[in-house]
C-alpha cells in the first residue's frame, strides 16, 4: 500500500465516519438501535469534523513542520473570523469561544484557556491530518497538533488531539490497531484523563456487551454536552480496536455508541482508513463523499477530501526531502510551551498552493469574498433551519 493511498484512506475514512455518525449524534445506543438497527448507510453530508480537518490540512500543507500556534491564530483571524458575521454554523463552544478570545486580542495559549470548553473534542476531530503528515513519527504528529490545539483548546482537549494524531501517524506506517493505540497512549501523560479513559475503554472491550461496558467505563453521566475529548477519543479508539482496524466495522460500531457520534465515527474512520488505505473505505460510502459545502467553514467550501489528502501527501514528500526541521528536544505533552529546537522552516514553504485560501482568491472554492460585511450566504446563513448547534441540543 502506498503512502498516498493511506493518506486518502485516512481522510476519506474521517469524512465517511463523520457523515455516517451525524444523524446519531447525541442519541443513546438504544435510540440508534431502535431507529436503524445497525447504522450502516450514510444519509447526508459531513459536519464540522470534515471541514475543520480540511482547514488543518491546509495549514500543514502551507507551513509543514514549521507550523506554529501564532500561524494558526493568524489563519483564524484572516480566514475564519471575517466570515463569522452572524451565527457560526456548526461551531461547538470551543470554536466560538476561540473566535471571541481572538476578537478580544488574546494570543495562544490564552485563546484556548479563557473559554470554558478547552477539553472539547474540537481538536481531536481535526487531528488526523497531522498523523498523515508524519507517518511513523507519532511524536512529531503530536507536537504539530499541539501547535494547532493551543489556539483553541487546553488541557485534555489538546491531549485528545495528540492521541489521535499519534495513532494516525502509527497507522500510516502500517502499525496494527493495538500498536496504534499504544502510540496514542505514548503521546499523552499516563496521569491524564485521556490516558485513563483509553485504558479503561480498551479493557471494557472484553465485556459481554462492549457498548454497555464502554458507556459505563468512560461516559460522564451528569453533564449534558457530549463533546468531551477524553470520552470521544477513548470511544473512537475502542471502536477501532473492536473493528480490528477494518473501516466499516470500526466506524459502524463507533457511531452505534451515540454521544458525539459523528466525531467518534470520524476519528475511528481516520485511524482505520490510515490502516487500510482508500480501498478500505466502502465504495458506497466514498461515493457519498463529495466536495464540502463550507457550511461550517466557508473558507474550505468546494474542497474535496481526496485532493486534500493528495496535497498533504505532496507536502509530506516535499518536507521529507528537506534537510532541516524543528528539533523536538522541548517536546511538551501538556502543550504549555513552545517547541524546543530551532525553527528553520519559515512560513510560505512549498505546498502552499494546497492551502484553502480566503474565499475570493481560491479558484476552486468559487465563493464570493467573505470579508467583514460579507453576505449572509458566505457566513452560512442564519435562517435556513437548525444548525449543528441546534442538532446538538436534540439529544439532551
Amino acid at each position: 500500500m502506498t503512502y498516498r493511498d493511506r493518506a486518502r484512506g485516512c481522510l476519506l475514512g474521517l469524512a465517511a465516519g463523520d457523515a455516517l455518525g451525524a444523524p446519531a449524534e447525541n442519541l443513546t445506543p438504544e435510540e440508534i438501535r431502535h431507529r436503524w438497527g445497525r447504522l450502516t448507510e450514510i444519509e447526508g453530508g459531513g459536519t464540522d469534523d470534515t471541514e475543520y480537518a480540511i482547514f488543518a490540512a491546509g495549514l500543514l500543507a502551507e507551513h509543514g513542520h514549521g507550523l506554529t500556534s501564532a500561524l494558526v491564530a493568524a489563519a483564524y483571524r484572516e480566514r475564519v473570523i471575517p466570515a463569522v458575521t452572524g451565527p457560526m454554523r456548526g461551531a461547538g463552544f470551543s470554536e466560538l469561544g476561540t473566535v471571541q478570545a481572538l476578537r478580544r486580542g488574546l494570543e495562544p495559549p490564552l485563546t484556548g484557556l479563557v473559554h470554558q470548553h478547552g477539553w472539547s473534542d474540537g481538536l481531536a476531530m481535526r487531528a488526523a491530518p497531522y498523523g498523515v503528515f508524519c507517518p511513523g513519527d507519532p511524536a512529531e504528529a503530536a507536537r504539530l497538533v499541539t501547535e494547532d490545539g493551543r489556539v483553541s483548546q487546553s488541557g485534555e482537549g489538546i491531549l485528545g488531539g495528540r492521541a489521535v494524531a499519534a495513532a494516525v501517524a502509527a497507522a500510516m506506517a502500517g502499525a496494527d490497531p493495538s500498536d496504534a493505540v499504544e502510540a496514542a497512549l505514548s503521546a499523552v501523560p499516563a496521569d491524564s484523563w485521556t490516558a485513563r479513559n483509553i485504558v479503561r475503554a480498551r479493557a471494557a472491550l472484553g465485556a459481554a456487551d462492549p457498548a454497555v461496558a464502554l458507556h459505563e467505563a468512560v461516559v460522564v453521566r451528569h453533564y449534558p454536552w457530549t463533546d468531551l475529548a477524553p470520552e470521544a477519543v477513548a470511544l473512537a479508539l475502542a471502536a477501532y480496536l473492536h473493528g480490528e482496524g477494518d473501516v466499516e466495522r470500526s466506524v459502524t460500531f463507533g457511531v452505534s455508541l451515540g454521544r458525539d457520534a459523528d466525531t467518534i465515527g470520524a476519528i475511528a474512520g481516520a485511524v482505520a482508513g490510515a490502516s487500510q488505505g482508500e480501498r478500505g473505505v466502502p465504495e458506497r460510502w466514498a461515493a457519498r463523499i463529495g466536495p464540502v459545502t463550507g457550511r461550517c467553514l466557508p473558507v474550505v467550501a468546494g474542497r474535496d477530501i481526496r485532493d486534500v489528502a493528495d496535497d498533504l501527501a505532496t507536502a509530506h514528500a516535499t518536507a521529507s526531502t528537506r534537510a532541516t526541521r524543528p528539533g523536538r528536544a522541548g517536546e511538551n505533552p501538556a502543550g504549555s510551551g513552545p517547541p524546543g529546537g530551532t525553527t528553520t522552516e519559515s512560513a510560505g514553504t512549498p505546498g502552499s498552493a494546497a492551502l484553502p485560501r480566503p474565499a475570493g482568491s481560491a479558484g476552486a472554492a468559487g465563493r464570493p469574498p467573505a470579508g467583514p460585511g460579507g453576505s449572509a450566504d458566505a457566513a452560512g446563513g442564519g435562517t435556513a433551519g437548525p444548525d449543528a448547534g441546534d442538532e446538538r441540543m436534540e439529544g439532551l
Partner: protein
Amino acid sequence: MSGDRIAGAVIGLAVGDAAGWPAARHRAALHAPWSRRLHRELDAFAEEHRVTTLPVPFALNQPTAPLAVGPSDDAEWLAWTLLTMGTPRAGAFRALVGRDDIRARVSVATALDNLARGVEPPASGHDNPHHFDDAAAVRAVAYGLRGAAPDEDAQVTNAGDGLLGARAVAAAVAEAVATGSAAKAVSAALAVLPEDTAIGHNARLALAAARAAGDPFGAVPALDAALLDHVYSYGVGAALTVPAALALTEVSGGELGRAVPAAACLAALADSAPALTGALTGACGGYGAIPEGWITPARTLAGCCLPELAGKDLIELLKGLS
C-alpha cells in the same frame, strides 16, 4: 468559631447567595417536582406564544416559604464543609455517594460518580467536565476562616482553575479576616493566581476594568465586556466568578452593601459571584457591617441541596465549631 469577621464572611456569603436570582430556582427544589415541570412548560409557552411575560418561581398549591428571599446552594455547601472539615475530604465526599436526595454542581456530581467507580482524588476532580467551576472556591471560604489550605478539599471535585479559585478565595478570606483590608485580601488572592492561567489573566483584567470604572455598580458593564464571553451554557466557572468577586471587593473598598448588589447584576454569574463577593466583603467589614435587614433571612438554611441542613442557623452553627 467566633469573631466578627468570621461571622461576617459566612453570613456575607449567605447574603450574596440569597441576593442572586438563581437562589429562588434552587430553593424551588423544595416544591413538588410537578411544580418545576409547570415552570418549564410556562417557559415553553412564552416561546411558543411569543409573549415576553416570563415565568418566575411560583407556588401553586405549594408552600410559599421556599420562595422568600434566602440562601441556597452555596450557603449549604459552605455549611456542610464547616461541619465536616475535620474529616479527610475524600471520605467526607464518599459518605455522599449513592444519595439520591442531594443537589450539587456538575463538578461535585461527577466527582461523586468518580469516587463510586474507584477514581480517587486528585483524578476525581480532574477527570471532570466541570473541573474549572467554583464549587471548591465556595467551600474554600471555610478554609480561609482558619487560615488553612483548601487543596485537599478542592481536589476532590476540581482541578486547574477550579483549584486555583479555591486557593485564591481561601487566601483572600484569610487576609480579610486578619486585617479587614479589601486591598490586602485581593493582593493575597492575586499572589496565588499565575498570570498565564485563565483565572489569573481574568482576575487582573477584571481588576483593571473595575478600577477604571471606579465604582461597583458602574463597573458592571465593563466587567461584562471584559470578562464574559457569553458563549458557554453555564456561568459558574471559577475563572469568571472569582475575578468578578475580587474586582468588586476591591473597588467597593470591602463594602458588602455596594459590592454584592453589583455582583447580582452580572446575571450570567449571579449564581455564585454574589456569594463569593459577600464572603470577601463580609470578612472585610465584619458581621456588624452587614445590613440589618439581610441577616434574618440569610442566616437560616433551606435544605434545598442538603436536606439535613433544613432550618439550620448559620450563627448557631458557627458557635458550635471549635
